[in-house]
């Protein structure tokens, strides 16, 4: 079923791309500001930003869960008619949300990894008279992943509550009825 969730998310190209890009940006910014907060740069302001990004990611994850269930009510109702339990549908919905976030994380880690490699290389060159710092350390990324897992759990709970409310009978109604 997880593989089918990936298939379903990849086929919804527009929604998937938009939310992946938003998640990527949020994960990067949250990690960056957690890093700044640890280093004492920007003072308390860094932690206010972290709080803002946490709120934004919470809002977006709940919005994503809501979009996935509400926009596809007829699909989930049809699946219920053909024998899916609420749990089966939740696996698909949460799989889509989880996969989108995971792709966001991979992009961020990939970018940070390459950036760190370039920085290390440049700092070793004899003719370079400036020092570049690694943008984000590992710890802030790990903490960010914890934040996002927490936020996704809340999104799964919302999705499940909404899935429970989808009545299979909707599938038998005419479009627009």
């Amino acid at each position, binding site marked *: *079923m997880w593989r*089918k969730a990936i*298939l*379903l998310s990849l*086929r*919804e190209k527009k929604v998937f791309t938009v939310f992946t890009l938003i998640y990527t940006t949020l994960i990067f910014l949250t990690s960056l500001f957690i890093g700044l907060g640890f280093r004492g740069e920007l003072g308390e302001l860094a932690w206010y930003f972290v709080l803002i990004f946490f709120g934004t990611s919470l809002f977006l994850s709940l919005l994503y869960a809501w979009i996935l269930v509400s926009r596809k009510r*007829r*699909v989930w109702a*049809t*699946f*219920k*008619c*053909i*024998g*899916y*339990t*609420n749990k*089966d549908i939740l696996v698909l919905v949460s799989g889509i949300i989880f996969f989108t976030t995971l792709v966001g994380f991979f992009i961020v880690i990939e970018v940070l990894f390459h950036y760190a490699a370039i920085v290390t290389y440049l700092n070793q060159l004899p003719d370079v008279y400036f020092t570049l710092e690694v943008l984000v350390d590992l710890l802030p990324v790990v903490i960010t992943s914890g934040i996002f897992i927490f936020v996704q759990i809340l999104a799964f709970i919302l999705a499940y509550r909404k899935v429970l409310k989808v*009545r*299979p*009978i909707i*599938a*038998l109604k*005419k*479009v627009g009825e």
Partner: protein
Amino acid sequence: MSSDKDIMIEAVDVNKEYRRAGAIIRALADVNLKIRSGEFAIIQGPTGCGKSTLLNVLSGLDLPDSGRIIFDGENIARATEDRLSRLRRQKIGFVFQEFNLVNTLTAMENVESVLWPTVLRQKEIENRAISALRDVDLLDRKDHFPVQMSGGEKQRCAIARAIIHRPRVILADEPSGNLDPQSEKEVMALLKKINKEMETTILLVTHRDLSSYGDKTILMDSGRITKIK
């Protein structure tokens, strides 16, 4: 002569009321009905006569206010949602008026989707989907998306989805309601073929006269069965 063992679906004193805009609408009034195993039954009646409500309660999609629904020997009138889901997965295939295919999935994937939550291996699921698509003569369209198919093809794909798990019963809600006359003939002939060759019980709801395809036609009006012929 039929015995009780031959009865696939039985409705006993079934009543169902709806409240709409403050008024109480009696959708089903003391409905008693027996559908034998392997039978092709057509429920016919005008819009609002209660035929879709009857289909809903017979399939466990809706609960009756009173009465019993015996499905393959089991009273499902008060069954839990999970039990009803399992029953639909194992024993029922659905065909909808609006096809209800997932637009982002190919014909093959739509047919396969019924078996996704099962323990079957992907290869087995694919083999069954190919077999079901072959049965409805749609194998050459297996990689097409619903938007690339005609109404008749979409409905044949939906029928393939309904038979992939070899259900005992197919419930069809106005399956030819959105089709042109030629496609309607093809879809009805296909359902008839499935009924005969796979011995699948078919319960079809329609507002049109399709009695020539069925073994039994149940006429309904104002929530009551008025005639069985």
